[in-house]
């Protein structure tokens, strides 16, 4: 029986693994739907007053208007306000046309400073964060695996060169390196963040894959492949890679989590995505000034989405590692 099939079966027996896989898949589905424009397409529209509080059962717009009308200052002390008519007109012009009509009936997580729906922002942010996480982890894994394979397989000066590169990258404090690359690239955007994280994050994967290749290249099955005439590239990628793929997969999964968190940190520090995009990080970056004013909903939305996604992904990674562990086979 195929070893992948066996691993799949073991994963299905682990209920934590299955549950976390369901959560991860629903996050991916959410991000996919948002990328296709099915949901949260209108996240940047002003749908409510500034800092509207969360309300699951919002009052009807009419009700709000009636309340607004009734809150018009009374004729105090029996003296008629000479400007009452004009003030009423100004008020109606200010409120009636734009906001009252645009007021949404339900805002589960309230609105931000510009009256945008926080829930839709969080969904759109999921799309950005997952995209960054997967793309950057994919890039880092690709680089780490390629470099590790070359270094571990060929040894000698190739190994020396990549080890030198590895030492350079790991000797610079990580955040400093990220900020330096961000500053050099200059422009903000998702692509920039992916490049920053991918180009700096391959080192851990490199080290592991290199060690695996060192171990495998002297195994008899690789010698046997050499004996029947398989080329170096074929031995490296057709023979050894499938045998170390469990290591690579687990690393990929770990780095998705790591880079989702890194994107949040980068965006929080202002090196992340631009103002025309929203991510969990940019939402958190807006949160400090809001919290002072007691507006807790934006940070709550961003952190709960992130905590759920990251926890589920980490648990899924653990389950996948257990299922793929060749010692259990």
């Amino acid at each position: 029986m195929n070893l992948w099939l066996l691993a799949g079966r073991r994963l299905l027996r682990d209920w934590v693994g299955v549950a976390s896989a369901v959560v991860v898949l629903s996050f991916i589905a959410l991000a996919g739907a948002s990328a296709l424009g099915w949901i949260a397409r209108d996240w940047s529209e002003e749908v409510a007053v500034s800092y509207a509080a969360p309300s699951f059962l919002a009052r009807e717009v009419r009700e709000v208007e009636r309340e607004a009308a009734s809150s018009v200052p009374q004729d105090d002390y029996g003296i008629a306000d000479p400007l009452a008519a004009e003030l009423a007109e100004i008020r109606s012009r200010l409120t009636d046309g734009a906001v009252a009509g645009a007021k949404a009936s339900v805002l589960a997580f309230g609105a931000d400073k510009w009256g945008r729906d926080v829930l839709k922002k969080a969904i759109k942010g999921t799309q950005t964060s997952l995209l960054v996480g997967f793309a950057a982890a994919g890039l880092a894994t690709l680089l780490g695996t390629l470099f590790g394979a070359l270094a571990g397989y060929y040894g000698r000066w190739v190994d020396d060169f990549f080890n030198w590169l590895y030492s350079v990258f790991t000797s610079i404090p990580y955040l400093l390196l990220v900020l330096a690359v961000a500053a050099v690239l200059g422009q903000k955007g998702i692509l920039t963040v992916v490049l920053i994280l991918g180009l700096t994050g391959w080192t851990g994967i490199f080290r592991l894959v290199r060690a695996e290749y060192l171990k495998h290249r002297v195994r008899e099955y690789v010698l046997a492949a050499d004996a029947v005439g398989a080329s170096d590239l074929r031995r490296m990628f057709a023979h050894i890679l499938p045998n170390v793929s469990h290591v690579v997969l687990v690393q990929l999964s770990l780095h998705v989590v790591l880079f989702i968190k890194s994107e949040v940190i980068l965006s929080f520090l202002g090196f992340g995505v631009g103002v025309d995009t929203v991510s969990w990080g940019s939402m958190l970056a807006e949160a400090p000034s809001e919290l002072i004013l007691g507006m807790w909903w934006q940070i709550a939305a961003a952190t709960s989405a992130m905590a759920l996604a990251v926890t589920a992904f980490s648990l899924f990674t653990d389950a996948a590692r257990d299922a793929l562990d060749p010692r259990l086979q």
Partner: protein
Amino acid sequence: MIILSVRDLRVDFKALQAVQGVSFDVPEHGTVALVGESGSGKSVTALSILGLLPSNARASGQILFDGKDLRKLSPRELRALRGAGISMVFQEPMTSLNPVFSIGFQIGEALREHLGLSRREVRARVLELLMEVGLSDPEAKLERYPFQLSGGEQQRAMIAMAIACEPKLLIADEPTSALDVTVQKQILDLIAALQARRRMAMLFITHDLTLVSQIAERVVVMRQGGIREQGTVKQVFEEPRDDYTRMLLDARPRIDAIQTRQRQGNAPVMLEARGLAKSFDGVAAVKGASFRLARGRTLGLVGESGSGKTTLGLMVTRLHEPSGGELRFHGEDAHAMPRLAFKRRVQIVFQNPYASLNPRFSIGATLTEPMRLHGIGADQAERRALAVELLSKVGLPAGALFRYPHEFSGGQRQRIAIARALSLEPELLVCDEAVSALDVSIQAQLLDLLQRLQAETAMSYLFISHDLAVVKRMADDVMVMKDGEVVESGTAEEIYADPKHPYTRTLLASVPR
């Protein structure tokens, strides 16, 4: 007087019944050999005597030692008994010794634990023990760590540890299987001498029937968890009543067997090595080996571990570049030939059937890969058909094509490895310890297969082995290597009948008969 009596022992590992109702006795001062192939349950039986079974095993039955049922003892009482009453020597001395403690400390541990001696007393006792097991320069060895000792010295240290508290029963689980044949002889002699001097009883567990006649008085033959036959060595060896025992006795390669090979005539020289040498970081592994191999003949290459025989085999297949000398194939410089053209004509089968097949490749992929690389067969369907043909040639069903290596036994995997080598129809096949990891009955089948294939295709073999009996069965010519040098070479008759070099004589004298 019986010291150990095993009554209807059963051990289950969930679905697997490893031992199914085994009963035998070990008399005081006597030696009983427990013989069986891999998976026969002999090691599980030994472990259950000492209560060392893994936690997922369930045992039942009686194990009476000195009248006490060991299965009813508390863990504490059992621990007190281990070492002092019964002790054990394991197969792999390198992995059974703790690498971070010195030899002296490890041998002394049992003395401190069971006898409560002082530091000085322990040291004196350990020195005595090391001398008793024949370690040279025991004072210095006391401070050594396991990796600083050779395999034979490690096993001597293990034996010293086992006899430190003067046990009444010694269980030796394949104590010599990991050792070279000359060292094996020394260790067996040592065990026999110690047993006679200390009047211990011994349970000797082995897969090698030839050792049994040397060391034991009684023998118990096990297969698939049950006992097939037991009796005195003389009775079992001379008049085996069980078919399986008879098969085992016939299958074992005999060094004193009469050579029955049909000699080939004077065939042209196919492969010639002149002063082939290889060194790794300045350490010479092979120091100038020269030989000739003719078409259809088998050259046996004999040597102990570290003699450089594997390195020589890898150079012949161009898996290692030699650092000196030359290799000529049909008169051409082999290293100047195109890589693929050379590899098509010279193939290799490795020792370990568990490591030499890619675990992620199906058997079909493993067998068609070489054909694809060398452009044999027009398309994948044709190559598949060829692969099925190869499988039937090595005695495997066509259904194997879609399965993965881990679904096959060691012998079957080695057949697949042979089929892979045959897929290129090579002129020379290097067999690097190709049957050494297999049970004797499987070994005999594979040797038959190799001989049949040679008769069909007139392939030449370079047959590398540490086992002189196997080489005698296979080889026309024999070459003996020691420390990277060829010390003697000639036809098989000459070497086996009249060895010239003292090392060859020692080797031949050490083979158990």
